[in-house]
């Protein structure tokens, strides 16, 4: 089949064995790739009750049929596993060239199982697989690791690696791939660390076959035109990076500050896109992306990738920090140590409020840059208060007896959009299959940005329907895989044409949305079996009292075809061909 390479590589770090598995047409048509393929694998092969940091929990790196083609903004890869932070199924996707390299090595996905007794590097060299000692790299920071591996193995290798946070099993450790890209959320770096897997390096020379290259070029041109015209993808993102959001979200009264005590911040303009723009020293893009949102800034001698809006918010606004110098250093530190900035910021903000309320004896002032930097370092070393922070905000707050001060959903720290102002976002947070995440439905696009149309942010009418549709849509976007920024402009119709031209199989928008719905339901089933109760479809009490969640949730369950307790009905599972869905990977 065109578009896919047709193979999945299974690596067992314990037995040091590898196996290449042919992916069946049926599985690829039902789950497409990326997130869908990973979710399928997890359901088919893994006990949902698995301990996320045990050798039985695999980590999967999956590409989509568009990866490695000229389809715009599609050089992406998804990492999937069970998260140590949320205990849910978890996917996190990253840009850069890592996904392309997997395809060029002749694979659609890599599954790493087991645990090595010593640190190792997994090497995939155009189909040849080897496992080598990673002792020499263990303890290195992420950029050091990438530099050293490129020096030792060759510059053309693409690398996904962990930093000291992943090695130490910090629940929100991330995975860095290339200098600018991260599998950021959910602690998948800790899963790699639990396997003593420091890095995966990949290169290859194969080409992804495309069914109708001429048609794909035509569609690509159409997409580029659309992306250039759209004020967000054509102007704001390339000019300001994601930080253009700071002023807009603050202006909408939806920028949570000081651990969500406030919903806008009078110093937000000091962290705006306009301010950071003065410090940009270089701009770049993922391969084949016409948006080019990436940039590097240098602030007070500190060079930092981006920083992205969410990082600026989490370690800045949410912790009351407006000093650019300290903020840049805090973000750089997280990148180097391999920590998710949103979760780190959320946990520190929670601890700051604990301090303010006298729950802990230590005084940690809002906005203290020195304190934030020190706490980040302590977290990775699990020293002092870092021991608490390393658990993530939810477990830390529970341990301190103040569960309500943790701004999390399903233990994942909430990002930079206040659900008290954005009711669609509130429902999206509550029902997210991976916890408090903005990227499952990104209702901000409609509730604030007006894409494709501005809707009333504080009504509940239509929100359940829109959240479900957007969740399904982004599930397929994550499976193709296309960047979510591009998906703000490129709808299911043009994406279905692109997929058809790449694979030679006729897809339409209805088929894509059905696949998205199937993936969403399969994730839900995994979580239910893992013991994630529907009662966790909620918000922190501070936020919940201002959001009519119950009504939206009832409508949402109905629209989803789930029972009133949030369990998918048999009829829905039948409709989605999910009954008895446990085979299909032939090996």
């Amino acid at each position, binding site marked *: 089949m065109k578009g896919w390479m047709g193979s999945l590589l299974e690596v067992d770090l314990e037995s040091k064995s590898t196996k290449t598995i042919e992916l069946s047409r049926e599985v690829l048509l039902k789950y497409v790739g990326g997130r869908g393929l990973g979710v399928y694998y997890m359901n088919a092969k893994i006990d949902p009750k698995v301990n996320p940091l045990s050798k039985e929990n695999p980590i999967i790196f999956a590409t989509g049929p568009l990866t490695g083609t000229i389809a715009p903004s599609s050089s992406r890869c998804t990492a999937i596993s069970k998260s140590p932070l949320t205990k849910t199924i978890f996917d996190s996707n990253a840009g850069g060239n890592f996904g392309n390299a997997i395809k060029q090595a002749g694979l659609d996905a890599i599954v790493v199982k087991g645990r090595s007794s010593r640190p190792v590097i997994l090497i995939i060299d155009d189909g040849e697989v080897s496992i080598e000692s990673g002792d020499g790299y263990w303890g290195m920071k992420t950029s050091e690791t990438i530099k050293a591996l490129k020096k030792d193995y060759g510059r053309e290798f693409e690398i996904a690696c962990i930093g000291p946070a992943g090695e130490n099993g910090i629940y929100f450790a991330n995975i860095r791939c290339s200098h600018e890209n991260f599998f950021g959320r959910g602690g998948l770096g800790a899963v790699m660390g639990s396997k003593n897997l420091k890095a995966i390096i990949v290169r290859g020379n194969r080409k992804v076959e495309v069914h109708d290259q001429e048609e794909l070029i035509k569609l690509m041109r159409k997409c580029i*035109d659309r992306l*250039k*015209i*759209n*004020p*967000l993808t*054509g*102007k*704001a*993102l390339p*000019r*300001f990076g994601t*930080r*253009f*959001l*700071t*002023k*807009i979200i603050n*202006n909408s009264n939806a920028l949570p500050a000081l651990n969500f005590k406030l919903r806008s911040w009078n110093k937000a303009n000091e962290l*705006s*896109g*306009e301010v950071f723009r003065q410090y940009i020293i270089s701009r770049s893009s993922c391969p084949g992306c016409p948006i080019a949102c990436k940039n590097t800034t240098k602030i007070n001698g500190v060079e930092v990738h981006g920083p992205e809006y969410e990082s600026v918010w989490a370690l800045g606004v949410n912790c009351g920090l407006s000093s650019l110098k300290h903020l840049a250093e805090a973000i750089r530190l997280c990148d180097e140590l391999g920590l998710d900035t949103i979760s780190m910021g959320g946990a520190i903000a929670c601890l700051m409020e604990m301090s303010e309320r006298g729950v802990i004896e230590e005084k940690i002032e809002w906005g203290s840059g020195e304190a934030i930097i020190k706490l980040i370092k302590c977290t990775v070393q699990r020293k002092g208060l870092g021991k608490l922070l390393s658990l993530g905000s939810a477990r830390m707050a529970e341990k301190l007896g103040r569960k309500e001060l943790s701004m999390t959903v399903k233990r994942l720290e909430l990002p930079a959009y206040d659900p008290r102002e954005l009711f669609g976002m509130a429902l999206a947070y509550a029902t997210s299959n991976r916890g408090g995440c903005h990227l499952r439905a990104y209702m901000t696009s409609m509730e*604030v*940005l*007006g*894409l*494709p*149309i*501005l809707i009333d942010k504080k009504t509940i009418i239509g929100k359940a329907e829109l959240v479900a549709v957007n969740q399904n849509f982004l599930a397929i976007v994550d499976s193709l895989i296309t960047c979510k920024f591009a998906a703000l402009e490129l709808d299911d119709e043009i994406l279905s044409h692109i997929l058809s031209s790449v694979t030679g199989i006729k897809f339409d928008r209805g088929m894509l949305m059905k696949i998205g719905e199937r993936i969403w339901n399969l994730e839900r089933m995994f979580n239910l079996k893992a013991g994630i109760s529907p009662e966790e479809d909620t918000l922190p009490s501070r936020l919940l009292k201002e959001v009519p969640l119950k009504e939206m949730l009832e409508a949402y369950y109905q629209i989803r075809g789930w029972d009133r307790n949030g369990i998918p009905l048999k009829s829905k599972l039948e409709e989605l061909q999910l009954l008895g869905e446990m085979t299909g990977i032939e090996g």
Partner: protein
Amino acid sequence: MKARNEAWKIFRLYGRKLTEKGYVAGHGGNLSIRFGNKMFITRHGCTLEDVKLEDVIEIEIESETSFDAISSTETVVHREIYRQTQNLAVMHAHTPYAIAISFFTETLKPIDAEARHILREVPIVEGRAGSKELAMRVASALKEHHAVIVRGHGTFAASQTMELAYRLLCMVEKSAQQIYLTEILKKLGLKFIEPREI
């Protein structure tokens, strides 16, 4: 906030008028007013039929800002008009007759006396919506003219007030309609008699 509210009232009024005339539909068209070094402009994707306060976006004229992300796709054109001309209000609508005529001519030359006197002629330019190239062409044309048509896209009219911009835009559209009707009558074999000044 007061200025924004005032802009909102104007956008509501003229957004409705344009809709009633059939010059905009759905999320087509955009309006802006200059206010010192800033301008108020309609939001990307809003409907002029029912402009809401949150659809009024305040942005800088000289530099791009974060809010460009949510302002009209044609912000770049409005900004360039304010940079290059003395106009204080800009209106853009997808006027059907002007669009139709734009496919067949390089310049719209009004045939009725009043429009000829006021508009003289209306240049027709080309360019991709929201592009810098289009912005330069439209702004350049508006240095010499009251209005300009973008081929296959619509009319931009600019003036000192929104009311004047509206009248100019209506005049352009009426002229295009008159040309259309005249050409049909010619095709039907009727003899065209040039008006004479007696």
